[in-house]
C-alpha cells in the first residue's frame, strides 16, 4: 500500500481526502440548517423542528428530498445561461474555499505520505480565500439580474454594493493579525500563535503581543457577517421588503444551492476567524507535563455527551427516538473510549479544538441572527464606510507602529 501511495499520491491520498472532506462538509451544511432552526426557535420560545425524527434530526434529509422533487420553474424572459450559472457559481466557490483551511497540525502521514491536514497548504492561503470570497458576489448579483424580475434585481444590486463595501473592511481588519504572524500561509499563521504566556493564557492573536487584535477581530466578524449576507446584514434577501431578494425566482434545487452556499460561507468565515485570531487547532492549555491531562478533554467530552444523550434518549417521547438516541449516545461513548488510546489522543487534538472553536462562531452567527433587527440600507452603507473602514485602518496603523516599536 505504501509503495502504491508513493507512486500515485494524487489518487491514493489526495482524492480520498477531498471526497471525505466534501462528504463531511455537505453533512455539516445540512445539519447547520437544523442547528440554526433549533437555536433560533429556542431564542423565540418555540420548539423548532420536532416531528421528523427525534428532536427533528431527520429534518435536513426531508428538506433535501423536498428540494429535489419540487418543480423547477424558469421565469419567462430570464437570461437562461446566466440564470443557471449563478447558483452553480455561488455553491462551487463557497465549497472551494474550504480546500485551503488547515484542520489540524501541519503534517499528517497516510500510507507513508506526508500530507497537510486539510486538502492543501498554500503559501498564499489567506489571499486565495479572499479571492474566492470576492468572487462570491457574482452568484448573488447575477442571480438577481438574470431572473428578469424587479425584487431579485433590487436584491442583487443591494448585495453587490454591500459586498464590495464590506470587503474592504474585511480585508483591512485581518492585516493586523497578518503583520504579527508575517505570513499569508494559514498553517504558519496558526503556528505563530503557539505557546502560552507565563500567566497562563495562550498567545493567540486576540490577546497577542504587542497589539491584542481584539478590535481587529470585532471588525473582522462584523464585516464577515455582512460579507456572507447574514442577518442583520441580509438586505439582499430582506423578506419584509423584497419578498426573498435575489433568489425570489429560484425554486427547487437551484434554490437549495444558494442556501447551501450561504451556510458554506458561514463555515469558511468561522474557520478563518478561528485561524486568524483564536489559534486555529491549538489547544488553549500549555504543553507542560502538568497540563498533560488536558489531552483527554476530547475523550471526556465525547464520553459525557454520549452518556447524557443515552440517558435522555431512553425516556424520549416516541419509540423511534427511544431506539435512535441511545444508539447515537453509545456511538459517542465508543468514540470517546477510542480517543483515550495513545494513537488517537494525538490525532484528535487538532481537529477537536479547531471544530470546537468553529462551532462557537457558528453559534454566535445564529445568536446574532436571532437577536438583532435588520439594518436600514443607508445605515448599512454609513456603518461600512464611516465606521468599519476607518477603524480597521487605524488598527493596521497602531499594530504596525507597536510592532516596529517592540522590535527597536
Amino acid at each position: 500500500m505504501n509503495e502504491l501511495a508513493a507512486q500515485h499520491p494524487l489518487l491514493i491520498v489526495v482524492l480520498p481526502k477531498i471526497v471525505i472532506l466534501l462528504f463531511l462538509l455537505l453533512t455539516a451544511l445540512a445539519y447547520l440548517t437544523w442547528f440554526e432552526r433549533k437555536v433560533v426557535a429556542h431564542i423565540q420560545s418555540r420548539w423548532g423542528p420536532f416531528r421528523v425524527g427525534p428532536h427533528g434530526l431527520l429534518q435536513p434529509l426531508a428538506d433535501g428530498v423536498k428540494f429535489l422533487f419540487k418543480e423547477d420553474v424558469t421565469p419567462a424572459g430570464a437570461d437562461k445561461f446566466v440564470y443557471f450559472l449563478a447558483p452553480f457559481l455561488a455553491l462551487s466557490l463557497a465549497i472551494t474555499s474550504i480546500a485551503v483551511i488547515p484542520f489540524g497540525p501541519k503534517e499528517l502521514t497516510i500510507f507513508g505520505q506526508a500530507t497537510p491536514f486539510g486538502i492543501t497548504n498554500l503559501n498564499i492561503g489567506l489571499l486565495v480565500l479572499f479571492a474566492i470570497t470576492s468572487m462570491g458576489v457574482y452568484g448573488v448579483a447575477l442571480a438577481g439580474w438574470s431572473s428578469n424580475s424587479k425584487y431579485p434585481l433590487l436584491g442583487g444590486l443591494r448585495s453587490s454594493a454591500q459586498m464590495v463595501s464590506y470587503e474592504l473592511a474585511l480585508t483591512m481588519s485581518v492585516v493586523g493579525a497578518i503583520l504579527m504572524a508575517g505570513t499569508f500561509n494559514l498553517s504558519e499563521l496558526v503556528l505563530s500563535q503557539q505557546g502560552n504566556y507565563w500567566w497562563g493564557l495562550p498567545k493567540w492573536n486576540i490577546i497577542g503581543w504587542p497589539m491584542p487584535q481584539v478590535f481587529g477581530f470585532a471588525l473582522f466578524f462584523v464585516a464577515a457577517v455582512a460579507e456572507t449576507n447574514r442577518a442583520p446584514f441580509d438586505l439582499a434577501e430582506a423578506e419584509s421588503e423584497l419578498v426573498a431578494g435575489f433568489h425570489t425566482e429560484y425554486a427547487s434545487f437551484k434554490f437549495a444551492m444558494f442556501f447551501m452556499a450561504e451556510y458554506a460561507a458561514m463555515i469558511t468565515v468561522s474557520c478563518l476567524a478561528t485561524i486568524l485570531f483564536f489559534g486555529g487547532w491549538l489547544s488553549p492549555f500549555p504543553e507542560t507535563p502538568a497540563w498533560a491531562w488536558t489531552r483527554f478533554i476530547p475523550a471526556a467530552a465525547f464520553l459525557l455527551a454520549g452518556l447524557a444523550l443515552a440517558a435522555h434518549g431512553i425516556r424520549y417521547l416516541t419509540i423511534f427516538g427511544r431506539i435512535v438516541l441511545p444508539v447515537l449516545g453509545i456511538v459517542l461513548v465508543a468514540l470517546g473510549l477510542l480517543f483515550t488510546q495513545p494513537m488517537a489522543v494525538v490525532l484528535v487534538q487538532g481537529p477537536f479544538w479547531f471544530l470546537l472553536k468553529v462551532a462557537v462562531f457558528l453559534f454566535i452567527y445564529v445568536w446574532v441572527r436571532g437577536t438583532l433587527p435588520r439594518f436600514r440600507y443607508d445605515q448599512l452603507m454609513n456603518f461600512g464606510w464611516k465606521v468599519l473602514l476607518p477603524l480597521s485602518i487605524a488598527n493596521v496603523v497602531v499594530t504596525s507602529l507597536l510592532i516596529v516599536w517592540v522590535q527597536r
Partner: protein
Amino acid sequence: MITPQIAVFLILAAVAVAGSLSLILQRHPIHSALSLVVVMISLALMYLLQGAEFIAAVQIIVYAGAIMVLFIFVIMLLNAGVEERTNLSRLAKFVGVPLGGVFLLEIAYWIGRATLRLGAGPQQTVSTRELSTLLFREYVFPFELTSFLILIALLGALVLARREE
C-alpha cells in the same frame, strides 16, 4: 516536447483568447463583462504558472472581484439592453476588422522580434515578502506617487459628478 507546464499554459491561453473573442462578439453587456472575468481569471492562473503567487491572487481580488463587480453593478443599474446594429456598425465590419487584423499582426511581429533574443527567464517563485520589500523599500516613491495619482483621479471624478449642486 510538451511539459505539463506548457500544456497548462496552452489551455489557459486558449481560454483567454476565447474569452476575449466572446467579450467582443457577445451582444449583451453582461455577457461581455462575464467574458472579461474569464479572461482575468485565466491571466491570473498564468501568473500563478510563472510562480507569481501574490500577483495572481491580487489579480483575482482586484480585477475579477472588485472592478468587474462594479462594471456589472453599473450595467445592472442602467438596465442596459442588447446592443443594436446601425449602418455605422456595418461600416465597422468592413473597415474595423481588417484594420484590427493588421494591428494584431503588427503587435505579434514586434513581440516576436523582441522575445526572440530573450533567453528563458529564471523560473522561481517570488515570495510575497521579497515583493513587498521591493515595493516599500526601493520603489516606495513611485509606488506612493501612483497611489496619489489614483486618489486624485478619484477626487476628480467625485467633483465632476457633484458639480450640479
